[in-house]
């Protein structure tokens, strides 16, 4: 009898905590969605459930004469996709070498990567800014992509190397005995087995540029070059609250696809991180 009551109390308390947390989590999210349907522009009048909901803000975002939103969206997509492609290629090559070959400089190389992944690459912000000025890469997407790809290499190399280390070496050794060359072993034996970690690296390197604000805000100058993060910040920061509802609509349009992408691959994120076991 007593056991049963204890269990009831425990479960009730647990559900109470869960419900409280759910409200805390969901409230701000629903509030943005609500704001995006509010008539008017200001933050002050916005309500979670608007009296006369409107799609005006969404229409405005899609109207290229009134807003640069679509350009920003396209910029972000382009930068993220290119960053992802280049990062995956470079990271696979380096991680494979570090995992499978024993060469002079390997230990020092790994050590360097380990230290570099700890220093966020925007710590050298001043240098990146000045170098971009000198090379004429300020306000270009190329400059930004190069910085993102370079910054992604150390951490993701460690992540992928950790995974490749778990693929038995006997596989490639027997292939070598059968006469397979270096490239063939890499493409036909190791890469297919490394698909899960490649997916993780691809996702990480795709999502990171979306969330980056600091580098993009330093390197990009003109409005039509902005990424979403910089553009949306610009929208709210200029006169705070005056375009809040438009900002809310813009946020919903970016947050929903990213969240769906994220939730459907969430499993891999966690397993990838624990498998590589180096960095969060």
């Amino acid at each position, binding site marked *: 009898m007593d056991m049963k009551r204890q269990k009831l109390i425990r479960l009730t308390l647990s559900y109470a905590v869960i419900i409280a947390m759910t409200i805390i989590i969901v409230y*701000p999210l629903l509030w943005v969605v609500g704001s995006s349907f509010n008539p008017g522009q200001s933050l002050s009048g916005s309500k979670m459930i608007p009296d006369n909901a409107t799609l005006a803000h969404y229409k405005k975002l899609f109207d290229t004469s009134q807003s640069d939103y679509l350009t920003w969206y396209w910029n972000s997509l382009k930068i993220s996709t290119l960053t992802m492609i280049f990062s995956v290629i470079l990271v696979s090559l380096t991680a494979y070498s570090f995992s499978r070959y024993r060469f002079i400089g390997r230990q020092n190389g790994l050590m360097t990567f380990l230290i570099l992944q700890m220093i966020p690459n925007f710590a050298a912000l001043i240098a*990146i800014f000045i170098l971009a000025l000198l090379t004429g890469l300020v306000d270009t997407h190329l400059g930004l992509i190069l910085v993102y790809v370079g910054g992604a290499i150390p951490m993701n190399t460690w992540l992928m190397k950790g995974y490749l280390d778990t693929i038995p070496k006997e596989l490639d050794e027997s292939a070598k005995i059968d006469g397979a060359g270096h490239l063939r072993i890499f493409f036909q034996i190791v890469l297919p087995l490394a698909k899960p970690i490649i997916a993780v690296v691809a996702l990480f390197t795709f999502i990171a540029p979306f969330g980056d604000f600091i580098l993009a805000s330093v390197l990009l100058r003109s409005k039509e070059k902005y990424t979403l993060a910089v553009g949306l910040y610009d929208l709210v920061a200029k006169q705070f609250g005056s375009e809040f509802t438009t900002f809310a609509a813009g946020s919903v349009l970016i947050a929903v696809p990213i969240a769906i992408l994220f939730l459907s691959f969430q499993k891999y994120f966690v397993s990838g991180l624990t498998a590589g076991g180096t960095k969060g």
Partner: protein
Amino acid sequence: METPMYQSNHRKIALGLSLIPGFGQLYNRQYVKGISFFILAASFFIVFKDLLNMGWWGIFTLGEVVGRDHSIFLLVEGILAVIISVFGLGFYAFNLRDAYKNGQKRDLGLKISSLREQYRALVDNGFPYLMISPGFILLVFVVIFPIIFVVLLAFTNYDLYHSPPAKLVDWVGFQNFIDLVKLDLWRKTFINVLAWTIVWTFGATTLQIALGIFLAIIVNQKDLKGKAIIRTIFILPWAVPAFVTILVFSGMFNESFGVINKTILASLGIGPIEWMTDPFWTKVALILIQTWLGFPFVFAMTTGVLQAIPNELYEAATVDGASSWQKFTKITLPLVLYATAPILITQYTFNFNNFNIIYLFNGGGPAVSGQNAGATDILISWIYRLTMTSAQYSKAAAITLLLSLVVVSVALWQFRRTKSFKEEDMM
């Protein structure tokens, strides 16, 4: 072991000759290799002669004539010259070693590998370098190069008043670091920013870890229904891009229009709180928001670990008469902490450098009189402010250097303890 009996002195002669790259190889009768070494070395000098000359001069003087010399360009060229010199010296050392090794083989009466064998060896040994080089070269230019640049910049007087092309920049030794300690304005700001950075890092991170573990354990209870949907909801803050949520929160916390003051606190009968203008409340808001943003990651990690703990452990504990609390402190918590510790530590370094939340929420503000950083500026956002708004490049570089030293030592300390370091073959 006995020293090998050399019948001749080919190794020494080859070594001596290869002081000019390639000649030692020619002496060893490896003609193709010798010629290609020589051509490589010669073209290296022809291509880089001017840059090396200019660079090495530039990095020492940082320019001598105002108007003609641009100190920062010279510094960049200087670093390039240093990097190229390092590569050149590496090649030179390889050339010397190669000549010596092959000479030694001849001394011992061994056969020197043929051209075909050399080619095979080059492909086999060179393959990993070939694979690494694209990534490595990019890394050198966008990561390592900037870091060297910042380190050097920290020892110059580059700021608004010493800004090329109108003025020259000079080496000033440790002056920037001395200023940080000695000048009142800088010392006061530095101490305040550092103190808040530490409080912020430990406060926000510890809270998000505690909440994440706590919720994971609650949701993982066997008899709890609806686990899948609850887990999805709890992951949401991680799934939505952080910059969006931070901007949304800064709207919600707005003092006069924000929903928190106007609706939530008002309905509880609490007067408006100055979330944006009072330093204390801004800090509270920041820590709360970061907890909201950061706990799902810990939650997901911990859930993974919890699901892997074998049930027999708990059954055995129940048989031995352990209470729920004992099971928690003696089984669950140690296992969770052990498995996630390395990743949890990176959460601390992440928040230490968490620029986005500080800058996007309130721009590091509110402003504080008598210091050149806002009340909620952490080191990284202070560096941003110094660089982008007041052009205090050298001071910002000096602070970056200090910050990186902290992060790197934490990182090294952490990784010394992890598995991959100890297992010989992993490293």
